[in-house]
């Protein structure tokens, strides 16, 4: 009986050491999760600041190359994210990316929003998937895989920033042209994204937001069109005339 009980005891000990091992595994993965959540929050914060910086610079002057200059400074701010991405890369090797994808997404999407805003200001185009992939690399290769979902959801938020940009810009010189350009651009975004809504979760909800941004831009473009329409002069000349009065 004693022998049996001892055997039991041994068994029980062995089992405990197995569970001890499980504990380590579970703790490791939880700790990693925590670290990634924190880093992702940092990425979000830097990206948000970059977006504000872009708005700031683009409104500062009206030179033709202001987009280029804004993008340059925006990218410099965004560069602060790279050390964070590098630290995430170490945590996301192999199957771990997909294990922790939900922790990575929020920061990554905000980064893509900022990056695509800078890209738009410089090039007046939508950053492509492969350009975004390239931005998520350093000399050692990609930080982690880029999913279509993160790419599209990040871009979807871009339309909100473009709406802000178009409206604040509208009463400046050339604002009318900008508004019309942004209007067309956002309209195309909405149409293009629509094709992907069945496959990309949450994109549908974001499309509704894009829709209302679009309507705001349309209303602004409408108002600009209207206000010049009473006079038989081309809009540029009208703008010059107004400029004259207001700078007196």
């Amino acid at each position: 009986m004693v022998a049996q009980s001892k055997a039991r005891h041994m068994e029980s000990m062995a089992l405990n050491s197995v569970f001890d091992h499980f504990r380590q595994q579970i703790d490791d993965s939880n700790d990693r999760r925590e670290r990634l959540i924190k880093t992702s929050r940092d990425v979000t914060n830097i990206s948000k600041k970059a977006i504000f910086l872009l708005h700031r610079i683009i409104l500062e002057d009206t030179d033709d190359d202001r987009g280029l200059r804004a993008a340059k400074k925006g990218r410099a701010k965004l560069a602060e994210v790279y050390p964070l991405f590098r630290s995430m890369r170490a945590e996301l090797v192999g199957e771990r990316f997909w294990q922790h994808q939900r922790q990575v997404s929020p920061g990554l999407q905000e980064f893509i929003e900022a990056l695509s805003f800078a890209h738009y200001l410089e090039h007046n185009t939508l950053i492509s998937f492969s350009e975004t992939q390239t931005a998520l690399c350093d000399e050692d290769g990609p930080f982690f895989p880029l999913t279509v979902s993160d790419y599209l959801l990040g871009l979807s938020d871009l339309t909100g920033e473009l709406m802000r940009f178009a409206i604040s810009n509208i009463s400046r010189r050339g604002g009318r042209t900008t508004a019309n350009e942004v209007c067309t651009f956002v309209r195309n975004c909405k149409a293009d994204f629509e094709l992907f809504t069945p496959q990309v979760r949450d994109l549908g909800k974001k499309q509704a937001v894009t829709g209302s941004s679009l309507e705001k831009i349309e209303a602004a473009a409408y108002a600009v069109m209207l206000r010049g329409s009473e006079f038989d002069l081309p809009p540029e000349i009208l703008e010059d005339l107004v400029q004259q009065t207001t700078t007196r």
Partner: protein
Amino acid sequence: MDAANIDVLNSLLEKDSNVGEKIREQVKELDKKVRLIVGILGKIHSTPLNSMQPLVATVDPVLLSCHEHIAAIANAIPPDQYWRWKDMWSNDIRSLVFAVALMEYFKTRSLISLEKSAELLGIQDEWKDRIILPVEDYLLGLINMVNELSRFAVNAVTLGDFEEPMRISTFVKDIFSGFTMLNLKNDLLRRKFDTLKYDLKKIEEVVYDVSLRKLVPTDKV
């Protein structure tokens, strides 16, 4: 529960699940095409009126190709079970009514009827125990169209067309007064109808802006 009994029950359950499966397949395809149609019609907002006909015409073949899916759905539904399955595709039906109503507006500036909508959607009379176009879906489709037209009134002005808002105003006022004469019991329908009021107001404001600035001959208002 004896084995025979279980077989009977299982075959009943199986049948339903097969019907669902077949419909789901067709709806998936239908969905894609509806999305394509809505996408094309989204371009009206940046299309000058003289290019509208060609644009609208590109919808026709896609619309036509929806017929086969609707027919396949009708074939998949057992007799008498239309109301059991309809929620699976009624959003698509409403979008299609929206599309044909909008196209009809651009062609004839008049309102499409329920019958004509059903016809253009390829819904055949002899299927009436399996698929129909219910009044609710027709009306909801029309409301969608008015929502779109109020946005279009704004964008038409931006494109320099000051007369279109007048036409839209007349058209939408007519639809609105028609709706007020309907006895709407259905909750969704009543709620959606309330959005029409906002559309109407928006259109009235566009007409106001245009006529205040004398951008159209006064007799057009």
